[in-house]
Structure formats: C-alpha cells, structure tokens
C-alpha cells in the first residue's frame, strides 16, 4: 500500500468513527425527546406527591362533574330523571299545592361527605398501585395505615382535598417521609351549590325563585327553570365563567296536570 491509500484508509476510519459518534449522539438525543412523562416514572421514583396528586385530581374532577350534573350528588337517591340524567330533589312535597320540605338542609356538608366516601377507596387503590409500581423499581414503600384519612373542603371556586397518610419511601439508602398532601382543584361547585341551596330555600318559603332578578344582580350566573308536567321544576344554574351547569330538581306547590 502506498501512503495515499493509507491516508485514504485513515480518512475512511475517521469518517466511520465520526458517523458512529454522530449516530450515538442522535440516538440519545432522540431517546430524550421521546421520554414519556408519567407520574412516578423512572425519573421520579420517589415522587409520591405527583403520583398521588394526579390520582386525586383525576378522580375528583370526574366526581365533581357528575355531582354538578346530578343536583350535587354522585348517587342521587331521591331524584328526577330528566334528559337521561337523574337529578336530585333538593326540596320536595309529595302532596300537591303544598310548599316543599327541604330534603338536604345541609347540602354542602352532604356533598362533602359523599365526595369523601367516593374518593376514599379510589385513593387507597391508587396508593397501592403506586406502592406496587415503586416496589417494582426496587424501592420500599411503607404505609402507617391501610386507609388514608381524607378531608374535603369546598371553597369559593375551588375544592381542597387533604390526604393525611404517613408514607415512607426508601431506596438505595435514601429515605423520604411524607405526611399530608394537599390538592387544590378549580371548580365552581361551591358557588353553584350555594345558589342551589338558596333556590331550595326560596322555593320552600315562597314556591318561587326570582331567577330574572338574580341574573341581573349576579351576571356571572344564569338560572333557568324548566317545568316538567307542572309538577317538578328543574333549575339549571350556569356558571358563565366556566360554563358548568348544575341542575337541581324541586317539587313545590306542585300542580298536577289538568284537574
């Protein structure tokens, strides 16, 4: 081989080396780009908070949407079927021509209790999933109790969920302890439920709710009643800010159809 050929071989080798290095770099770059951002994923094995928050948020938002549609309850026990939705009666009188009796005097409290009961097993299951997931990645997860203590609070334009459960996560000699977890979810359910409660009270007192005046005083909300067979009124309370609509059923001073 002459020198020229040797130089040519070296050049080729260099080019091949550069190509290999470039390939490796591209491989890693692409790999970084396609990383899937999962809560509790490979890079966040200790991130209990992200994992739990996502669970709480998903379940709560799903529940809140249903509660808003169904008069404040996930499982209406005393409802009126309207447009394929079971809408809870907040005020009801079985007798005709009689003012209604408030069926949920502590509406918001009942809603909180139902939401709490709904979230309990869901969050418990979620945390167990997390435990299995973390442990599959060689972490050790310790719970102080089986069932998490959950507190639900409704506030202006938001819902606060507090999970009180002591959790210890250990991996490779590192230990992290968690105690309380707070999740804040934006929802107008408190505002809507307050109005629903007011409507029920007005209907119980006067068989009537002045929805036109209410809309003028509080332009954020619009209330529309719809009479079903002269017996039940379905009130739709729309939050114009979020476009969420809460429906409630009232049977007060009911008039049977015809005579």
């Amino acid at each position: 081989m002459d020198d020229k050929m040797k130089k040519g071989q070296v050049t080729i080798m260099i080019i091949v080396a550069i190509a290999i290095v470039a390939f490796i770099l591209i491989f890693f770059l692409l790999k970084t780009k396609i990383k899937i951002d999962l809560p509790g994923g490979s890079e966040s094995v200790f991130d209990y908070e992200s994992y739990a928050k996502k669970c709480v948020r998903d379940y709560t938002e799903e529940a809140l949407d249903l509660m808003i549609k169904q008069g404040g309850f996930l499982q209406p026990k005393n409802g009126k079927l309207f447009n394929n939705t079971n809408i809870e009666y907040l005020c009801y009188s079985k007798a005709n021509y009689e003012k209604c009796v408030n069926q949920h005097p502590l509406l918001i409290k009942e809603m909180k209790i139902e939401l709490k009961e709904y979230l309990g097993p869901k969050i418990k299951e979620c945390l167990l999933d997390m435990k299995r997931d973390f442990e599959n990645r060689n972490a050790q997860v310790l719970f102080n109790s089986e069932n998490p203590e959950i507190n639900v609070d409704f506030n202006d334009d938001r819902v606060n969920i507090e999970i009180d459960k002591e959790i210890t996560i250990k991996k490779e000699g590192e230990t992290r302890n968690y105690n309380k977890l707070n999740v804040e979810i934006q929802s107008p359910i408190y505002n809507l439920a307050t109005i629903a409660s007011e409507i029920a009270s007005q209907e119980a007192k006067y068989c009537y709710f002045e929805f036109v005046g209410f809309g003028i005083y509080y332009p954020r909300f619009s209330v529309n009643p719809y009479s079903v067979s002269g017996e039940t009124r379905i009130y739709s309370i729309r939050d114009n800010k979020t476009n969420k609509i809460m429906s409630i059923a009232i049977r007060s001073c009911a008039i049977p159809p015809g005579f």
Partner: protein
Amino acid sequence: MKIKASRERKFEAIIQIVLLIGSIISFGYLIRDFSDNIVSAVEISDSDVTNIQNNVRNEGQDPNQLLNLDNNFINRMLNSFVPQAPSINSGDFLNGINSNTGGVKVCTKTKDNKICQQITGNSCQENCEGECLDGTLKTLPENSVCSLGTCIDKTEGICSSESPKKYCEDLGGEWKHQEEDSIPECVKGCCHLADQPIFTTEGSCKKQAESHGLEFGVGADFNGEIVEEYSCLISFEGEKEGACVFSVDDESKKGCKLTTKTECETLTERNDNFFEDVLCSNPDLGTSCLRQNSTNCIEGLDEIYWFDSCGNKENIYSSITDQSWNEGKILKNVESCTLGEPGDWLKNQGICGNCDRLQGSICGNKTAEQKLDDATQGVVCLDTSCVDDSGKRRENGESWCAYQSSIGLPGPDVPGLDSLRNSITNPALSFLAGARATDTPGSLHFRKFCNNGKIEISACDNYRNQICVEEQTPKEETEDYLSQASCRLNRWQECLAYNPGSAEARLMGFAGKNAGNLLKAKLELTCGLDPDCFVKTVDMIRDKEYDTFKFSYCAPRYPPGFDMKDNPDAANQLCAQASQQCTVVYVNMLIEGWTCKGNCECEKPTFAKEMNDLCTSLGDCGSEVNYLGNQPGGKGYIITTKDKKDLWSNLGGLPFGDLFGGGFGIGNLANPLDAEPIKEEYIPLTQPEILDKIRHSWIVETFGSLDISRILSGDADSGTPNVETNNEKGGISAGLIVGGTGATALAAAYAFPSSLAVGGGFSHATVIGSIPNPALAGFGGGALGAGLGLAVTGFLIKMLGIGPGLPAAATYALMGTGAVAGALVGYQYATAGTFCAGGPLGCMLAVAVLLIIVFLKILGIGEVKEKKIMFECRPWVAPTGEPIGKCEQCGKDKLSDGAESFPCNKYSCQSIAQNCKYILETEGTAEHGGGLCVTADINDVSPPRIIDVWKDVLTTGYSYSEKPYDQGFSIEKNSGGCMNQFEQLKFGFILDEYGWCRISGERKEKFEEMTAIGGISQNQSFVLSGYDLSSLSIEGLKSEEKNDISLYVVCEDAVGKTNIDKPYIINLCVDPKDLTAPVINNVNSGGDVLPYNTETQTVNVYTDEKSECKWSYNEGVFGDLPNSMTCNIDDGDRDVRGFECRSEVVLQGETTSICIKCKDHPEWQNTENENRRNENSECIKIELKKSNSELKIDSIYPNNVTITTGRNIPSLTIKTSTSGGLDGNADCFFSLDNSPNELMFETGTNIHKQILGTGTSSLQEKFYSLKLRCVDKANNVATNTTSFEIKRDLINPNIARIYENSRRLYVVTDEPSQCAFLNKPIKERKNACNFNVDEALEIGNIISIEDSSQGYLHGVEFDTKKPYYLRCKDLYGNEKTGECDIVVKGGFV
C-alpha cells in the same frame, strides 16, 4: 102542641148542636191543616238543628251521614240553590277525600327516600318506610322529628328554610323552629371581600374570607345594617388604586401598572413607588405610558374605560377626553360623565361610557344602531332594555304578563262589578250582565321578561294551573311604569270550597225564603273578595211569585284547563258541578188549556246561556271557543227532559231551535271575542293573607260577634233570619188564607218557596197561589150553613185538585155558590126544620155546585204537569275536522302584549283540534315548554306527500324538475353536466304534513335502516356529498362515464304512516370524471399570530381530493412554484378535513405571505393523462405573522426572599406579572419544589396570582423553589425560576438596654418590638408580671417606638416613684410567659 113544639125545638137544638159541632170540626180541620205544617216544620227544624250541631262538633264524621238525613223540606231547599252534582260537591268533596283516605299523616321517610312527606293515612303501609306521624306538617309538635324550621350550617354560614328537625341535627346542623328572617345568624347583610360585595350571612362572609386567605375584619368585613341586596351591590368600594411605578430593562423608561398599594408592594417589594389615585399616564411619574390610547370593556365591570399605551385601565370613557383624564388622576364613577337621567338613561350614549347594568346599560361591542360618536371606538354602553311588541320600552329585568285569550270576567276588572253583573236582568244591559270566566280552552298565561336586551318568554304551568300576576310601579318623574310579573298558583279549587257543604247548606235552609239571599251574601263576602273567584248567580226569576230557579255559586275567575286525554274522569266530575235541573210547571186552565205557570224562563235561550256561562266558568266545560276562536267540536252541554230520556225538542221557534240538540250547534253561546286578548291586560298582585281573613271570619263580619250556634238559636241581632222567625212569618201569611182550600201546600210553599224548584211543590203553590183568598169571603156573620157550604166546596175543590185550573172568578163563584147553598139549606133547616122541604133552592144550588165540580174534574181542569229540564254540563271538546295546517298554527297566536308568537305547548296544541299531536322537538326548545303541534289524523291513511321542492336551499347552479312530484323529482345541473364526485349538493322538498324523512341510495325494507334527513318538519333538506356516496349505499360508480343514481326517500307522519312501500325517488347524475381543480378546504398555519422567536412554521392544507401542492413567496403558475409540499395521497389518509399537504416555511420578517396552489391526480404525474390534471389558477394566500415582542415575566413575588413568620405560618400569595408577546396576557403555571405544573388560580391576564397554604394545604418552615411558566395565545413562552424561604421566629425579644433621660424611660430591644408596662398588677392577679403586652396596650401603657428606631428604641414618660413592670413582644407575637422582661422600681432596675 107543647110536646110537639118541645120535640121540634129539641130536634132544632140537636141540629144546631150538630151544626155547631160540624162547624167546629170544619174550622178545626182548616186550622189543623195549616197549623200542622207549622208544627211539623218547627219539629223538623229542631231535630235537624240538633243533628247538625252534633255533626258539626263531631269532626271527622263521615259527611255522607249528613247527606243521609231524610228531610224533604231541607232537601228541596238545598236543591234550590246548591247545584246538583252527580259525584262531587265543593267542600264536601274535599272533606270526603280526607275522611275516606284515613286523614293526613306525615311519613318520616318514604320508600322512595323522600323525607317528611304528608301522605294519606291509608297509604302509610304502602308508601312509608319510616314512621307515620299523626297530623300535618304544620300541626306537628316542635320536638317532632319532622317539625319544620330553619337549619343552620355553622360551617358554611348557610340557613335552609322548611328543614326537618331530625335531618338537620343528625348531620350536625343547628335547628331552630323560627323563620329564617328572625334568626340573627341567618339575617343577610353586605359582605365586602377583597374585590367584591356579596349579600350573604355573616357566617358565610367569614367562611369566604377564610377561603380567600383574608383576615375577617381586615381584608373582609360584614355590614349587617345593609339589608337590601341592591344597596349592598352598589355600596362597594374596593381598595384604592393608583400607579405602581417600577423600573424596566431600559432605566430611562419607567414601567407602570395601575393597581392597589398592597399589590404594588408585592410586585415591587418596595413601599415607596405607589401613587394613590394617580394614573400611570400622569406625566409627573415619568413613565412610558401614554394617556387614553384605546377604549375597551373590562370583564365584571359595567363601564367603558380608557386604557393607556401600557394597557393600564384609566378613567371611564368620556368624549371630553381632558375631563375624563382628570389631569392624570383617578376619577370616581359618580364624578365621571353622566350617561342619562330618569326617563332616558342612555341620553348621552354617544359621548359617555358610564354604563350601569342596574340602570339598563352595559359595556359591549358597538352595533349598527348603538355606537359612540367617535367612530374609532369599538365599544359602547349597550342598551339592555327591550321594546316589546306593542312598542313599549321594557327595562332590563322587567317582567310582564301576556295572555293568549281574554282573561277573568268580561270587561274591566272593577271591584264590585261582579255583583252588579249578577243583578242585571234588563236585556238592554245584557252586555254587562252574565258574569262568566272568559279564559278559553287551550290558553295559557305567560311571563315575559327582558334579559339583557332580549325578550324571553316563560309559560306558566299548563292547564292554567298557574296564572300570571303583575305589579306596576310608576317610574320616577315619568308617566311610565315598571312591571314585575310572576306566575303564581291559580287557586281555583278554593273557589269550589267557598260553596256550602251539605251541613252548611242545611243550616242556611232554615232561613227559608231568605236562604238564597243569605247564601249569595255569604258568597259575596267570601268568594266575591277572593281575587281568584267570582260569584256566579243564575237567576231565572221573572215572576217573583211563582218562579224559583235562582242560585248562586262560587266559580273560578280563571277556570282551569283539563287534560282530557289522560284524565277525563276528573274533568267530567268538575263540569258536572254545573249540571242542574229546572222544573217547569204547566197547569190545565179552564179557558186557556195547558199553560206554563212556573220557571217558564227555563225554556228560553237565557237558561241555556246562563247555565253555559256557569258551565264554562268551572273549567274547560260547556260550549266555548278555543284560544284561536274556533268552535267546539263536541257537546259541551246537553239539555234533556228528565221524564223523557230522549232530547226534548219542544221549543220550535226559539232563536236557537236546536238548543236541545246539545251544545254542538249553539255557536252563539261560544263567544269568539274571548279568544282575543286585551292589550295591557294583566292580573294585579294580591295579598294571600286577605284570603285567610276572608275565609275564617266571614261569619263574624257578617253577623257581628255571633257564632253559628247563636244564629241557629235565634239569638242573633235583629234582622238576622232564623228558623223560628221565618216560620212565624210563614204562619202569619198562612193565617191570612186560613179557610181556603189547599192551605197546606200554600203554607209550605210560603215557608219554603225553594221547594218549588224541583220538589214538585211548585204545582201546589202555583195552583193555590192563583186562587184568591176565599177565606176572606168564606167565614163570617155567624152563618154556620154558609160557612159549612163554603168549607165543603173548598174541601171538594182541593180534594179533587181542580183549583189550579180555575180562574179566580170561577173559584169565587163556586165557593160563593156553595156558601149561598149552605146558607139556604141552613136557613131552611133552621126555620123549617128540614133541609130541602121548605125550599129546594139551597139543595139545588148545592147539587149544582157538586155537579160542576165533578164535571170540571172529569174535564181534567186543574191538573198540573211538570217538565224537568236537565242542563248537563260536560267537558269541552276540541273541534273536529279542522283543515290541515290548523294544528300547526300553535305558537302563532296573538298575545295580549302584541306578540304574535309563543312557545307552543301540549295543552294549547290539543285544544286546536282533536287530531293535533304535540311533539317535543328538541331539548333546546323545551326550555320554555315549546314544541311542535302537528296534524295527526288517525283517519289519515296517507303518508306525507311531497307537494313541492324547496328552491331556497338548492345549491347554486342546479335546478329541480317540474311538477308533479308524486313519484319524486330530478335534480339537474344548469350547465348540462352532472354533479362531480367532490361536490356537495344541498336540496330539499316540502311535505303536505309534518313528518320525519329518511334517505338511501337503494330501496330498504325498513324505515329505520335508512339515513335520517332531519327532524320532524314539513320542510326537509339534505346535503349530498359526492365523495361520500357510499354512506348512502351507492357503490360501483363507473369511472369514465356519467352515472345516473336514484335516491330513495321515505317519510313518516305523526301517526306512523310511511311510504316505505312506494318511496319517492330523486334522480340525478354523478360524473366521476374529475373536471375540477382541487379545493383547499382547510388551512392550519399555527394560529393567527406566531411566537416572537419563530423562524420556521409548518403549514398544513387540506384538499378535497388527492393532490400535489406547491408554494412560493410570490404568485405564479403551478409549475413555476419552487417549493413542493408533502401530500397524503392514499385513500386511507383522508380525514374529515380532506387530504393533507404540509411544508415548512421559513419566515421572512414580522409578516410572511405565501401562495399555495395544488394540482389533482398526482398519480397521473408524467403519464399520458398529465394533460387531464386540473390545477388551481388562483393562489391560496396565507399570511404568517409573528408576535411583536417576546413574552416576559416582569416580576415575581416572592423572589429570593426569606419570609419570616411567627409560630403559625399564614397563607402566601404568589404574584407575577407578564408583558410582551401577543398582548401581555398569558396563562401562567407554577411549580413548587418541582411538583407538576399547575395553572395558577388567577391568570389569563397580565397579572397572575396563586394562594399557597390555604385550606388544608399549609406551608412549612423550609426553603422552597418556585418555577413559573407562562404561555400566551400566540404560544410565546416565558419561564422563570426563583426561590424563597420561610422561617419562623420563635425567639422572644430581649431588652438590650434601658435608661432614663430627661424624665423619660428608654428601652432598647434587640429586634423590632412592641413594649408596654404596668405600674401595678392587673386586678385579681397577684403577680404584676402576669400580663401580656396586648393587655397592657389596651390599658394604654404603651412604650412608644421612637420614630427613627424602626421598632428598636421605645420611650415613655418616667415617674420614678412608680414601679414599671416591662414586657416586649416582637413582630411575630413572641413574648415571655408569666414573667417580665424587666422591672424598674424607684428608678432602679
């Protein structure tokens, strides 16, 4: 002779004795005959009274027992003024329901989970899961589980009315028996939160303050003195605003934000750059913001505002700009321009932006009619008022009533006019007479309201179970008025309850002839004052002596409608209340023959009319037009004779000869004017309490303080009728005719004239009443023979019953002759001792009288015939056989406010015709109860027929074939070709009736298998997509030839008739040959504005067919465009938008324009078909625009700071501001300690906030990292990272030094503190150091902070004679417990 004379005298004496005895017996008979009636009446009265009193006292007794009292007198009397009802009768009916159903009970929990419901006692076992409590909800004791009261939720501060005790307390609520308004915790007031007023309770205010992280009493407060919602909403003044000046990158310019002082301090972390009440554009501030750059609305605020060049809000818009700018200072609303004045709130709409939604205007985009005088401004104070169909201006929120027909009684609704109407019998005033309810079948009441400039309508409940009431309040300084309307319960059932029940009617019956008047008076004082009722009096009395058919009845003023399809029985029962029988009496007179003598008016049209008026007033009964003014379709009433069950038609010659043929043909009884609503007609609001007073006190008001028992015992005030008094009067009257024959019946008739109506007593009364008082001519002068003759003649006339047919003269003649005959016979006997031997004249006369009487009897003179005319009130029946299209008029009627439409509802629809079917079309229209009313004739065997094509919807360039359309029609292209396969063709047709239609490319056996065209309608339209023919089962089209296709259309009408066996066929042709260039249906170029730093942008276009596309910065023919796009050309690549082509475009400057063109059939590229390809001749131009600047995060709080707190860590508000990008506004996310990004609670503008540590989440004493990521609508992204630390200060302050100088004691602390002292222990505490700083501060023993020391140096006047017990507290509340920091006594430490 002596003996003979003695014998003759003895015989004479015997005869005289006999005559005397006979006379005594005769008179005794006559007297007994009358007095028996009196005695019997009194006896019956006493026993009845006793029974009734017992029954009244014994509540709950079966009212049927009352009905079973067997007393003809009373029954006859009752029947005279209480309409006979076959099944139900007002109050008794309701009482009967109660007693027959086991009374009312309260179920604590029903099986369907309702709590505390009133149910009938008999249904407890079936319906109640919990306990059944005795009584009603109102009568339950206070400690009952279902006792109703107010439930207080102390946590939320919410009070709920009508709440059951147990269910409130079980959930931890506080229950009180009082009304909500009387409970202090439930009284609402004005709650001022940081940025909004809320009208709520103090508890709720505290809760909301807490949830906003505000300290109650500082950032939020409650004013209980403001008790009106309106006052609260307008009373609010937020925290004062001003200019917050800060530095930006370029130090020569200052940035500025109009905000509050608190926020400014947070944003800038300084407290010296806030200028209260100063605008950012104020030149004194030296900012870069220029004044009055633009105008706009602000969400949540009513007014139009100026904005400066930095985007800051300025003052309210005024065309006088200097005045509005106010020398760069904030101008309050009240000091800004005035938009209008009472009567014209928009007077200055063109020049002023001080809108106020509570006075009918709000900031919004300008319209063609409403704009500012300055045409460059895009907003205006929009008028939120409305103008109704009658042209009247209605304020925003104003509501008013509208009616579909005349309502209430005819004519003006004037109090007292009802009674006047009832008393009018003069035909000339008949237009005023005849009170009746005029609401027509099918008509409803509506509430209309103005809602932000739009008139909306809401139907009151169906069947007029609700009525619309309205209150009109005069507007200030104008002649106009403001209306407020609402739909309230129609209390029509209460009207029925005003009518007397059986027991009450019996009591009134003892008032005898006055009973009818008493009833009427009672009804006028109860029913007549009830705004929902009126007293209907049917008065057929024209001859006061003989006619008896008159009664009063309380009827609904707004009669209810019925659902005849679902509940016909109830309608039948209610209408039957007006079914009544009138007994007309005919007498066979000596000369005239059979002659009507009593209740003759019942055979005249007035009877039918008056009875029909009552009938129609009870509800949808009788003969009446529907709300459209159309005639009824069935027999709303019929009139029959009771003895002959067939219809009586013996009234030929009367104005309506078919009267007794039933209500069907009586058009003139149904007043078409009733269907014409009167403009401005409305029912005023009334106070329900009045009704209660009326109902419970009518007796007291009518009879003073007497109760019913006193009335019955005759112990009432003078003038009050009672049984005894009335019978005494009867006795006197009867006494005048004692001696006349037939006095028995006469006495009864006078005592109880009402018995004439139906009891058969009339015949006697009429007959005897027609006889002159023979007693006056009968018994006198001591002539026993005459008297005996008179009595015998009268007795015979009565006994044989010829009296009623005799004229008075004939009766007098007969009785006179009888008397004369008796006198002669008596005289003969008295003088001659013989009856006839002395002179036969007397005997002859007696025989003649006897023969005449017998002869008259044989002729039938005096016979009485009763004709019982029964008016039977039946439910109204909708017209039959209405033409096609009549049902469809539903919703197009005229309303009282001039509107010509209303939401069609089921009740109105069903009243138009019997073949109308109501269809609730969509949920949207259902909101106000509106739907479709279609003709659904069950006799119609034809499916919907195409009667025309719908030209308006046909795609341009096409035409339909000509009529007839019996088989269908064809669609052709005007240019002569066919529809191409990338085209969309819209066509339609019109049916002869409402129906649903479906379409398919092949014949189907079932309607459901076809593709739906749309909803139920007469007008049907369909869009046919050339490229989607397979969805209609059209397959296998030839590629190079014209394809003729047929579309099969099947329609179904409201009764389910379809033409599935013979579909309509729509013919058209489809040309698969592609003659058109690709059409770009959709473009995606990354949004209207791109991020600031964008260098390249992907552009996607979507074509209707597979294409090859190119682009260039400049225009040119397709082949010259330099840049090719990557296109999807497989069939499977097509999505709903079409086939996608994409390319990266390198941007040139701020705005880049490109031209795109496409060419079809890419598969033919460079083949022999190349010249058959079609390409765009015109560019599709796309403009790519970048943002002007980068989005920036201007400030963050907290930013690398240590936040020191006390033992309890309060909530913390993260605040940040953005600028640049699209418009400075963005959505910001935060991440605390690398947690997932969360959208900040308040974001979307250029200020963003998030509260941390509220509710159940709390901050800890630690170091936090904070990441912010903001994204605007142009996808500009700005991020920033900072950190902050929270530290708790738990160390008490120390006194570093203490000294005296110039009679002042100075204390120096090692940190900023508050210091206080005591000179002696607080009362009842031994240790003088046992106090805290706050307690000493309250006393006033403050050791003042020296101005310049910032809390380190404190000084106070020093009295060396007194001890000083000193304590200090730092800013975080730390201080020693139970001991002093230092004690100074006698001037020494």
